[in-house]
């Protein structure tokens, strides 16, 4: 619940501020659906899959984790490779989107 309110608040800020750095849930949804959902699912990973769930998690946590994978302070062959090509704004969009999803 807290997470949902948080991202709603974020959206509101975005609408007010209207600046180019604001997160886009739509872009986040598209990226997540195209790439991340392959392993993590949207709401939940597959019942049979070894991947951690992302849906409904704290966006700040997700952002930090993805950035750690990107700069390899957190090691995982596959996530290091995937996060390596993401920009800050893509990470923010994806984290906000996953944060807004009900698991």
């Amino acid at each position, binding site marked *: 619940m807290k997470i949902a309110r948080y991202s709603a608040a974020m959206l509101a800020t975005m609408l007010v501020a209207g600046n180019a750095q604001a997160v886009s849930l739509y872009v986040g*949804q*598209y990226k997540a*659906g*195209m*790439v991340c*959902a*392959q*392993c993590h*699912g*949207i*709401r*939940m*990973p*597959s*019942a*049979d*899959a*070894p*991947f951690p769930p992302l849906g409904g998690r704290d966006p700040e946590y997700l952002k930090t984790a993805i950035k750690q994978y990107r700069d390899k302070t957190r090691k995982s*062959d*596959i996530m*290091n*490779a*995937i996060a*390596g*090509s993401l920009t800050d704004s893509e990470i923010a969009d994806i984290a906000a989107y996953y944060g807004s999803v009900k698991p």
Partner: protein
Amino acid sequence: MKKTTIRLRKNLLASSIIMLLSSGVALAKSDDMHQIYQDNCASCHGSDHGGYLAPALNAATLKGRSPTALRTIVMAGSFDTLMPPFYGKLSDDEIRGVIKHLQETPKQPNPAWTIDDMKKSLKVYVKDESTLPAKPTFQIDDKFENLIGVAARGKYGRGEGSKAIFINSATHQKVGEVATGTAAHIIDFNPANPRWAYVKTDTAEIFKVDLYSMKAVRSIKTGWNGPGMGVSRDGKYIMAGSFVPHNAVILDAETLEPLKTFELEGIDPDGKHVSSDSGMIIGTPYADIFAIALENAGQVWVVDYKKEGFPVTKIEKVGRHLHDAFLTHGGKKLMIASYDDSIVAAIDLEKRELIKQLPAGCVPHVGGGSAVVVDGRTLGFGTNFGDCDKTVVSVWDLDKMEVVKQVPVSGGTESPAAHANAPYVAVDIISKDRRARTVQLIDKKTLEVAKTLDVGGHAYFPEYSADGKFLYISAGYNGDEVVVYDSNSLQKVASIPMESPAGIFSRGRVKYMTRGLSPDEMEQHK
């Protein structure tokens, strides 16, 4: 579903993963690899390595391909397709080993699956059916019409995620689920007794399901793969057909015991004798017959299931590469799609002859087909998939058997949905980009696209609820939900989460025969 080979998209992300696949060798033995392939891959790629829902993987198709690039695909999956990631499920050595095995293994000869194999595969989960409840154990309308079944494939096409899920379309609540081991593919309802449904999986098992208790009571493996299945109008027989091997079988619908098998072969329209995949199989409400399409032989066989020995009448030269079909005229006529000559063939099941071949756009795939009555005319709708210059949905006047219009749509389409009480015919756009998220709605009266819905995932298999009030659509692949719209306002009203949903089958189908017709039409033709 389709069996065409799909071109692999270049993927930036996948190529960024390649770099991490450079070290280590150590390979496991080839027998183990054979087993890994059969256990994890064969349900999609074919146990004969010849392809099914996914491309053929063998020494010829993978010749000259970089093992590293192939390993990347197996590890990370292919984004926005059914190909799942095996990272964490198979070890790096196993992935390397299976790729090596695939690049060394030729396509296997069509493996046999005889009537004895079928008999041995019969499983009984509920011995005494009188112990089953006498009415549904969940809330649903008295006529038991609002039931919708969804083939939830599961991400890996097998395992815990693979089930048939049933929903009450009045409340959009899940009322039951039945685990199917491998991906559920087709769901058929018994027209004579509402409590039974039959679920066929990617690996050609058929489950007899008791809908009142939502339990599988029996199952039988009818082949290696192939979607064909039909139920007779009296609810006593099932006919099922396979791609591998090239045969079909009639089962007793009560016990699932196989009664007779049929070798599928014949002379194709070009005069060659060929062995053939089974295409669609359908039972018609008009007579005690099954119709089965022989894909490669281009023939439709009519089987009299009430006659001794199940005699067959063969209708030849129907088209090149037949696939799916729908019924019209109270079930007396069959409209069947033929991929390679871009036609839909109309067949008279009473006279057992070809009536006419109608233009149908390139690579026609009619899905379950649809027919609607508009201003006194009965119009049939046919979808097409494939990469074509012009992507259209064909509309035919089914009385005159002529083309009324080819409606331009935004991409290839796979399955049309219609209902007598709903204003639009829904078609799923399957072209491989953002369009795959969408479904387009064709206005029945103007025959033009009125609206595009952005459903998400790989949106496919639209289906109306039995009363026509709601439109159900699978947001498949990674969308992981079935989305429900109000049929008139087209507002989203519900979402039902499940893993990789595909085909949606309303129990309403048994009363209107072809989606879009009203039960009254059926009466008129009696």
